[in-house]
């Protein structure tokens, strides 16, 4: 147990050294490290609880996605029936999870074959499941039922989450934050982590808006008051204004141009009138054409700019707008105009998002936590070192060296993995200091026992190591299992604890098997001791 070949000793020293060196970038300022070669840039990332920031978990509204999908199918069915000149006697409506089409009984077969054309393979051309996006069944009596299989809904959901992530990325990046993290979680969730935000209100505001913008006509034939009393024509919507005091508007359902046709939106100030903040926008070619045509046909009539089912403004069309650009004024503040421009540029979310979890730590608390963690680490280390020195003297020194190397290696591995350091993570490291000496204690106590049992110094040391190492392995695996489970179930700070605990166990076992043994072996070779001073 005490003999190391030259190469083996060299390999151990090199491994420990390289892993320790991986921690070096953490001691330099971020700007300095950035100028280094890429492989040398790996470093610890401070968790949100230490550097401050917001952790926001969003959920995509699955019901809205399903409803959207069904409405779209109803629209498609209506168009298909019109094209095929089949009269749908009972109308086309969404009922529960189905779209129902009622036609004259004689037309049923024709209608079914026409409606089947709407169905596409799930997952596009690459989708190999053989399932279709729409299933058409004959319910008898001229009633045709169109249903969407679960696979198609799931697929649509996946697309919606993916689109949402892209749009959120655009929106968050526009806020000028440093290194936001945006990732999918589970089936329908999106995690957004933004470090270093003092007040996440604006971030939440920007994340929470669907930003679905439409240009639609106001219906002048119905007064809003009449509509509020229930006389709302089926082709109209009754919408409220975005500004307070809330005012009702009767707006046609038909969309002239949608926000999807926007290519650009910028905040600005109204140069002609009051100088109030506005948002200017520009359409793409098809949007410009549609807008020009619509404004030509409706000169003198009011139209409405509708954002997330609220009327932002309803100006009267004074002349045809053919240039493909325009401006929105709605009594904005400068920040509102800025945010609206960001939202319009990034595009609309496919479905509303709900914030289901938020954890924000201010930079002040983060600083305090770092200071507290550092202090606890120093105090803990000093207490343990002093105790070990007093208990085992020379071997205590060996243990302290091994633990110091151990801690340096933990930082090295954490940096290598670009792991996140949290306050519980620091606690995990401090705890590892307390635990790492255990492997040394096990070895030393075993050596003492062997001496007590009548062995000479060198044979006792040898036996002590070989017997204790098996125990060290056994006992550390149990803790490692606990750490692994914790890593799996935990999030954020708790996961940080699991990471440092787990890595700490691995490095502890490594140092016990190699570094401590190497130190003691070196000492034995040098001193050829007759007695062991422990």
């Amino acid at each position: 147990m005490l003999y190391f070949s030259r190469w083996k000793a060299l390999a151990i020293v090199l491994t420990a050294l390289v892993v320790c060196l991986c921690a070096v970038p953490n001691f330099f300022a971020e700007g300095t490290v950035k100028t280094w070669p890429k492989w040398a840039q790996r470093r610890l990332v401070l968790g949100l609880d230490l550097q401050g920031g917001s952790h926001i978990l969003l959920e995509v509204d699955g019901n809205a996605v399903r409803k959207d999908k069904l409405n779209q199918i109803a629209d498609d069915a209506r168009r298909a029936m019109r094209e095929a000149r089949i009269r749908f006697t009972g109308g086309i409506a969404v009922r529960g999870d189905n779209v129902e089409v009622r036609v004259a009984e004689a037309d049923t077969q024709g209608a079914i074959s026409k409606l089947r054309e709407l169905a596409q393979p799930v997952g596009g051309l690459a989708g190999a499941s053989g399932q279709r996006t729409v299933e058409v069944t004959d319910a008898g009596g001229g009633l045709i039922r169109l249903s969407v299989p679960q696979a198609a809904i799931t697929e649509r959901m996946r697309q919606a989450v993916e689109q949402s992530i892209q749009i959120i990325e655009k929106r968050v990046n526009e806020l000028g934050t440093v290194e936001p993290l945006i990732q999918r979680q589970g089936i329908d969730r999106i995690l957004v982590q933004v470090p270093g935000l003092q007040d996440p209100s604006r971030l939440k505001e920007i994340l929470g808006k669907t930003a679905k913008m439409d240009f639609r006509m106001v219906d002048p034939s119905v007064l809003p008051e009449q509509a509020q009393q229930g006389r709302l024509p089926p082709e109209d919507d009754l919408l409220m204004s975005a500004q307070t005091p809330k005012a009702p508007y009767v707006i046609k359902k038909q969309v002239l141009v949608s926000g999807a046709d926007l290519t650009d939106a910028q905040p600005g100030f109204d140069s002609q009138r009051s100088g109030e903040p506005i948002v200017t926008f520009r359409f793409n070619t098809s949007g410009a054409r549609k807008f020009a045509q619509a404004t030509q046909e409706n000169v003198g009539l009011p139209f409405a700019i509708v954002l997330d089912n609220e009327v932002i403004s309803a100006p009267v069309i004074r002349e045809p707008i053919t240039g493909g650009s325009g401006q929105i004024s709605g009594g904005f503040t400068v920040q509102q105009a800025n945010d609206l421009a960001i939202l319009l540029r990034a595009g609309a979310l496919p479905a509303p998002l709900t914030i289901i979890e938020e954890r924000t730590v201010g930079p002040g608390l983060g600083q305090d936590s770092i200071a507290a963690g550092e202090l606890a680490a120093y105090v803990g280390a000093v207490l343990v070192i002093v105790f070990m020195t007093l208990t085992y003297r020379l071997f205590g020194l060996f243990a302290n060296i091994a633990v110091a190397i151990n801690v340096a290696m933990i930082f090295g591995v954490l940096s290598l993995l670009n792991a996140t350091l949290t306050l519980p993570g620091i606690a995990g490291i401090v705890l590892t200091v307390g635990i790492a000496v255990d492997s040394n204690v096990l070895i030393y106590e075993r050596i003492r026992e062997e001496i007590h049992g009548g062995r000479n110094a060198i044979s006792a040391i040898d036996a002590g190591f070989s017997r204790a190492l098996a125990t060290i392995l056994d006992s550390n695996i149990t803790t490692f299992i606990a750490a692994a489970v914790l890593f799996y179930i935990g999030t954020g700070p708790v996961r940080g604890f699991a990471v440092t605990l787990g890595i700490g166990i691995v490095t502890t076992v490594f140092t016990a098997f190699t570094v401590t043994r190497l130190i003691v072996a070196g000492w034995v070779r040098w001193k050829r001791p007759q007695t062991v001073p422990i």
Partner: protein
Amino acid sequence: MTHWIIIALAAFIVILTVLSVLGVIPSVRVVPDDTKFDFIRFRRISFPISAALSIVAISLYFVHGLNFGIDFRGGTLIEIQNKSGPADIAGLRSELGKLGFGDVQLQQFGGPSDVLIRIAEQPGGDQAQQAAVQKVRATLGDSVDYRRVEVVGPRVSSELLAYGTVGLMLAIVAILVYLWFRFEWQFALGAMIANVHDIVLTIGFMSVTQIDFDLTSIAALLTILGYSLNDTVVIYDRIREMLRRYKKMPMPDLLNASINSTLSRSIVTHVTVSLALLALLLFGGKAIHSFTATMMFGVVLVGTYTSIFIASPILIYLGVGSTRHGDESPPAKR
């Protein structure tokens, strides 16, 4: 300033090390070499005590319950710091009381200007929780610094609770399976009883102190589990070794010898872990206070006691070593 303290401490450690290595300072012996304490006979006292304590802990759990934090109950937690001197908690309470949140708890947290506000989960799903935070921000305005805001919606909280519970079970099962492979089933069973004992007592502790029970508590429980088992495994390892070596020794003597020969290690290790935890408890900040306090109780008080007084003596009842005398196989050497 900090640098000087670190340098002074480093110098102190170097001097201490040199002095003790040279033998000027005598080494501290925690446990004298030949301790022969009869731990096994002590089971007649320790088992009833443990049973009684477990019953107390369980009834506490049912009477007092646990102080579930927002992780598991949902709701909002806001830590504020008054910008101008000490916070007026009574004033804050009446102001926030007007917002109609139902259960609002205020608590001084750390310094006199720090206040922790807890708002129970609001009816109306996830949006309602966000609306509550906005109302608080609107009420308190800029006179305070928002140090921490945590909002957990109803669905996330129930998921976290399920994850936590499942995780704890999973850890116990995984560790048991491991022990079963490494040792015999009696050892795995003994360790499991010890495990449950640890968890029950720690939950009793959390119930008495009404420490926040949240995700970090689950982390603390899992760590306690890991370390208590770590200790148990060290003693079990020794018992297994002794079983192989001394085929004729009566079980109680063998168990006693195993515990006594690892006693010094148990105590030294527990001192070092306690020192590390003590540092965390005193200086690690209030954010992890409940975490370290729970761990201190579980690892230091319960863990050691369990491995020595419960996990080992119980092996007698589980029939470990009862078949040894008929064993014809040659002594295995590890």
